[in-house]
């Protein structure tokens, strides 16, 4: 994968904040529990030398598999206004200015909702009596460490906080612009702002889907999102039951010409290993083959896409 992307001049042109020359693969799904972490962790494992970034900051669990030796932990803060009640004249300018409705005006005083604030600093600027100053508020942490040849970056949102975006920004900022290893981004579930933030610099998106009607519905949503972003993508069908009922997610792929990159079986050995926090591609030869083949297919599809669209 690495060599292919290094040799591919169009990827060199697509220099982004995250990577100048390494491939960035984002793993997404329309809902939680479909197998994003399973896929991202095992892809990084078969790639051998890789970077794994856990952007699922509301419940990061890739580190449970990699158990990295932590070398660095940073606190992530955002700016929030602090209102000096003695200086405030109750003019309401800050409340009227706030585009995010983070300030209410009750009993002649602004009233702040910290977790709604987007840290724009506008309220402090418009305050005529300088009653507002910006202070730091801790929203989570970013930690980094090595697990064998894999660099593991994990973001963690403080419990009770609403937006993981500042943490995801800091996480992606940790990736060197000279990174030569492939990068695997374990995204948050769904198709919200946090997911958009996570896939911004991705060269390829892997969509993990379950074989249910609900799974296909969520796949359609996340497929729409990556299409909107103009990202090439392919699907991993997880929890496939042999001789089972028709797979609605597979039907979606066939109907919409979305490439199917791999099928992961609904398998008790897999379930057991995974629930013990063990990496299946390390423990079992057949799963190593499965993920090596998936990695090859991603490489093939990405090359195919760049051939179709040299601008990318």
């Amino acid at each position, binding site marked *: 994968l690495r060599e292919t992307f290094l040799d591919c001049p169009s990827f060199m042109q697509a220099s982004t904040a995250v990577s100048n020359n390494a491939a960035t693969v984002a793993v997404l799904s329309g809902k939680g529990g479909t197998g994003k972490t399973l896929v991202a962790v095992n892809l990084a494992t078969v790639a051998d030398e890789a970077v794994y970034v856990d952007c699922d900051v509301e419940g990061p669990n890739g580190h449970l598999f990699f158990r990295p030796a932590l070398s660095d932990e940073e606190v992530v803060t955002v700016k929030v206004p602090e209102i000096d009640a003695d200086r405030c004249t109750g003019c309401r300018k800050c409340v009227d200015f706030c585009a*995010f409705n*983070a300030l*209410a*005006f*009750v*009993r002649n005083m602004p*009233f702040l*909702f910290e977790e709604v604030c987007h840290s724009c600093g506008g309220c402090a600027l418009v305050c005529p009596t300088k009653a507002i100053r910006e202070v730091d508020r801790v929203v989570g942490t970013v930690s980094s460490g090595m697990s064998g040849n894999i660099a593991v970056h994990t973001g963690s949102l403080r419990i009770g906080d*609403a937006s993981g975006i500042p943490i995801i920004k800091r996480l992606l900022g940790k990736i060197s612009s000279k990174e030569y290893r492939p990068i695997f981004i374990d995204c948050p579930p769904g198709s919200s*702002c946090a997911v958009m933030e996570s896939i911004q610099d991705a060269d390829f998106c892997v969509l993990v889907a379950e074989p249910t009607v609900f799974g296909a519905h969520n796949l359609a949503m996340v497929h729409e999102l990556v299409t909107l972003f103009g990202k090439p993508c392919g699907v991993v069908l997880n929890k496939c039951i042999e001789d089972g009922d028709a797979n609605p997610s597979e039907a979606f792929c066939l109907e919409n010409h979305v490439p199917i990159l791999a099928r992961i079986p609904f398998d008790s050995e897999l379930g057991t290993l995974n629930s013990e926090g063990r990496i299946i591609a390390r423990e079992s030869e057949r799963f190593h083959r499965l993920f090596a083949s998936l990695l090859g297919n991603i490489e093939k599809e990405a090359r195919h896409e760049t051939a179709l669209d040299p601008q990318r």
Partner: protein
Amino acid sequence: LEAEHTAFATDKGVAVVETDVAGSDVACISKIRTVEWRRPVKIAIPMIEQDINAGISPSFGRAPWFLFYDTDTSESEWLRNIAADSAGGAGIRAAQAVVDIGTNALITHQCGDNAGRVLSNAKIAVYRSTGGTAKESIDALIAGDLPRLSEFHAGFHGRV
């Protein structure tokens, strides 16, 4: 001592109390001089359509309309909810509109905790609709039959 008039919303209606400025809350009950019980004067209700005989909106912050009903004059006033299209903080903005119009009570199916904090700070009583039309809920409130809303949900806070 200067007197201050405050309206406290209670299960029975609105208690208008006169306190001296040193006493600021129900806790300072000894300082209350006169108490007058009144029905809520202005009731706010989130609505989907401009019809007092229609059902109440299932959402507070993103209801398209607010009905303000004056129990003294039996008049209805309609206000488009500008918070409905907010990217975030809709409940806060909607609660602000309800506060700004000078409401005493709100009838709703549910309400998020952020909006709940704005409303409680402004001493607006929040009642839980037990179903039926807006008019039926107003009549039930006036008759003292509506329960207070006891649970404020965690809100959606940007998660769509």
